[in-house]
C-alpha cells in the first residue's frame, strides 16, 4: 500500500469540513469588514472580534462537551438549558445571601455548591435513562419542563443581580491576555479529553453507543457509563450557566440558557459526531462551538439583525443533517447499475 500523502490524509480527515466551514465563515467576515481579524493589545488584554468569538463560544462549548458524550451513547440531553438556569440561580442566591457578597471565598463556595447541584440533576437524568430505561429524549424532557420553574423557585421569581468581582471574572476576566471564560471552556475540553482518552471511558462509551448488545455480552457496565455521561453533562451545563450568569452579573430564570441545548446539539453535529451514537470527536465539537459563535457574530457584521441568526442556524442544521443522511448522499451520488438490496425493513429474528 503506498504511503498516503499529507494532502490525501488531510482530505480524509474528519475535521476537514468543519474547519473549512469555519474558515469560509471567517472569510465572509473579512470580505465585509477587512479589519475583522485584527486583534489589539490593551491593558495586557487582547481585544478584537476573534477574542469576542472565543469568549462567547464558551457556554455553548461547555454544554456541547457534555452533550458529545451523551450523544455518543445514543442519548440526548434536552435539559441542559434548564440545568444552566438552575446553576445560575443557585450560585447567585448563594452569593447574594452570603455574609460578604464580594469575597473570593463566597464566589468559590457558590460555584462549588451550584456545580454539585447540577451533578445531582445530571445523575437524576442518568437514573431515568439507565435504570428506569426511559428513552433519553423523554427522560430529559421532564427536567427541561420543570427546570426553569425550579430555577425561578430558587430565585423566587426575581431577576437576581449579584455584585461579586470574582464571580463576574468568570465571564469577563482575562488571564494571560485571554478571556477567562474561554480558558475555562478550553480547560474543560482538555479535562474531558483526558477523562475519555487517557482512561478507557471514551472507548467504552463508543462501544456502548455502537453496539449495546455486544458491549453487554462483553461485560461492559453500560448503566454506570450512561449514568456517568449524564452526570457529566449536567456538570458541564451548570458551568455554562455560571459563565452566562457571570456575563450579566444576574440571573433571569426565564431566558438564561434558552435554546442552548439546540446550539449544543448543533455544535456536536457540525463537529462530525453522529446523532446515531458511537464515535465522537471532542475536537470536532470544539470547532463546532467556534463555528456557532462565529456565525452569531457574522450576522450583525454583514448587516442583518442579530436575532435572525436562528434562521441561519436552521439552514446549517438542515444542511449538516442532509450531508450525514445516507439517503441524501445516495441521491447526490451518480446512480450505479442497481441499488444495493438495502433491506426495506430490517427483519428482526434469525438471519438467513
Amino acid at each position, binding site marked *: 500500500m503506498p504511503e498516503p500523502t499529507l494532502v490525501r490524509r488531510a482530505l480524509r480527515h474528519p475535521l476537514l469540513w468543519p474547519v473549512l466551514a469555519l474558515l469560509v465563515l471567517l472569510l465572509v467576515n473579512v470580505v465585509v469588514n477587512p479589519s475583522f481579524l485584527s486583534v489589539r493589545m490593551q491593558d495586557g488584554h487582547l481585544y478584537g472580534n476573534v477574542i469576542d468569538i472565543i469568549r462567547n463560544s464558551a457556554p455553548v462549548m461547555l454544554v456541547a462537551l457534555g452533550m458529545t458524550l451523551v450523544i455518543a451513547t445514543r442519548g*440526548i440531553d434536552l435539559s441542559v438549558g434548564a440545568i444552566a438556569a438552575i446553576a445560575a440561580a443557585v450560585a447567585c442566591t448563594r452569593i447574594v445571601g452570603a455574609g460578604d457578597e464580594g469575597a473570593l471565598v463566597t464566589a468559590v463556595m457558590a460555584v462549588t455548591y451550584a456545580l454539585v447541584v447540577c451533578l445531582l440533576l445530571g445523575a437524576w437524568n442518568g437514573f431515568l435513562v439507565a435504570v428506569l430505561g426511559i428513552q433519553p429524549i423523554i427522560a430529559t*424532557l421532564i427536567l*427541561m*419542563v420543570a427546570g426553569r420553574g425550579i430555577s425561578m423557585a430558587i430565585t423566587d421569581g426575581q431577576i437576581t443581580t449579584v455584585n461579586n468581582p470574582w464571580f463576574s471574572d468568570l465571564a469577563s476576566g482575562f488571564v494571560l491576555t485571554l478571556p477567562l471564560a474561554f480558558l475555562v471552556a478550553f480547560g474543560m475540553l482538555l479535562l474531558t479529553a483526558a477523562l475519555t482518552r487517557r482512561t478507557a471511558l471514551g472507548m467504552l462509551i463508543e462501544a456502548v453507543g455502537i453496539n449495546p448488545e455486544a458491549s453487554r455480552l462483553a461485560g461492559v457496565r453500560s448503566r454506570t457509563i450512561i449514568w456517568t455521561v449524564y452526570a457529566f453533562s449536567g456538570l458541564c451545563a451548570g458551568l455554562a450557566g455560571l459563565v452566562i450568569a457571570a456575563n450579566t452579573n444576574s440571573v433571569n430564570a426565564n431566558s438564561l440558557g434558552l435554546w442552548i441545548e*439546540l446550539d449544543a*446539539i448543533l455544535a456536536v453535529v457540525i463537529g462530525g459526531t453522529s446523532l446515531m451514537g458511537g464515535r465522537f470527536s471532542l475536537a470536532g465539537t470544539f470547532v463546532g462551538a467556534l463555528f456557532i459563535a462565529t456565525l452569531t457574530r457574522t450576522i450583525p457584521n454583514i448587516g442583518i439583525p442579530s*436575532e435572525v441568526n436562528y*434562521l441561519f442556524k*436552521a439552514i446549517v442544521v438542515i444542511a449538516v443533517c442532509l450531508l450525514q443522511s445516507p439517503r441524501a448522499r445516495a441521491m447526490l451520488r451518480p446512480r450505479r447499475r442497481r441499488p444495493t438490496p438495502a433491506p426495506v*425493513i430490517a427483519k428482526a429474528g434469525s438471519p438467513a
Partner: protein
Amino acid sequence: MSASTVPASSWDRVRGYAPPPRYLPVVATFALFVGLYGVGGMRYEGLSDPQVLLSLLLDNAFLIVLAVGMTFVILTGGIDLSVGSVVALSTMIAARTLELGWSPYLSIVAVLLTGTLLGLLMGVLVHYFQIQPFVATLAGLFLARGLTYLISVKSISITDPTFTSLAFKTVYFGEYYLRWTAIVALLTVVVAAFVLARTRFGRTVYAIGGNESSAVLMGLRVAATKVGVYVISGFCASLAGLLFSLYILSGNSLHAVGMELDAIAAVVIGGTLLTGGRGYVLGSLLGVLVLGMIKTIIAFDGTLSSYWMRIITGLLLLAFVVVQRFATRRQR
C-alpha cells in the same frame, strides 16, 4: 335470598363497569381534572362557578389546537419541537400583513399556508431523509423563529377591526359565555377525533406508532401518513397561532417561547404514549384542561407563585412517563 338474587340493577352494571384498559389513561386524566376542580372548588370561593370551566376553554383555546396537532405526531412516535416558534411566526405574519393593509382573510390564509408548508418541510426531512424527528423539528424551531425576527424584531400590535371583532365575538349560554376561539378549538378536537378514529389515514397513524415496519409490510401508505402528521401539526400550530394572536392581539418574536413544551406535556398528561401508537385527542384536551386548572388554582390562591406551574407540570409529566414505562414493560 329474595333481594340478593334480583338481576343486577343498572346501577350495579354502571358500578361494575370497567373501562377497557386502553381508555384508562384518559379516565385517569379525567379523574385528575375532576379532582382538581373539586378540591379547588372547595378551597377557593368562586372557583366552582361553571364559568371558570368555560374560561378554561377560552384561555387555552390555542393550546388545545396545538395539542391536537402534537397528538398526531406523537401517535406516530415522533415529536414536534417547532410548534411554539410557528405560533410566534403566525402572530407575526398576521400582525405584519394586517399592518401592511392586507385583507384579514388573505392574512389568515397566508398564516395557515405558512404553517402547513413548514410542516410539510419537516415531514419530508423526517420521512424521506430519515432525519430524527426532534432534529428536523429543531431545525423548524430555528427556522420559524428566525423568520419571525426577519419580519420584525419589534412587537406589532393588531388593530384590524375584523380581527378585533373576531377576537371578542362571544356566544352566550344563559348567563355563561364562550368566545369563538374556544369553539374553533373544540371543533378542531372533534374533527381530529373523527379523523383518527374513523379514517384510513387516522388508523394508519396508529399503525405506524404501533409498529412502523409492520405497517410497511402491510402495504399501508406509511410515507404519506408520516409526512401528513407533520403537515397537520404545522397547520394546527398556525391555527393555534391565529387563535393566540386573537387572544393577545399582537405579533411578537418573543411570543410562545417554550409553548411546545406545554403542548407536549398536555398530550402526555392526556395519556398518549410518547413512544407512539396509544392515545386520544380527547385525552390531550383533558391534558390541556388539567394544566389550565392548575394555573387557575394557582391564580385563585394568590400566595403561590406562577413558577409552581412549571414544576407541577414537570412532576405530572414524570408521573405519567414512569407509570407508562412500567405499564408497557409489564405487557411485554
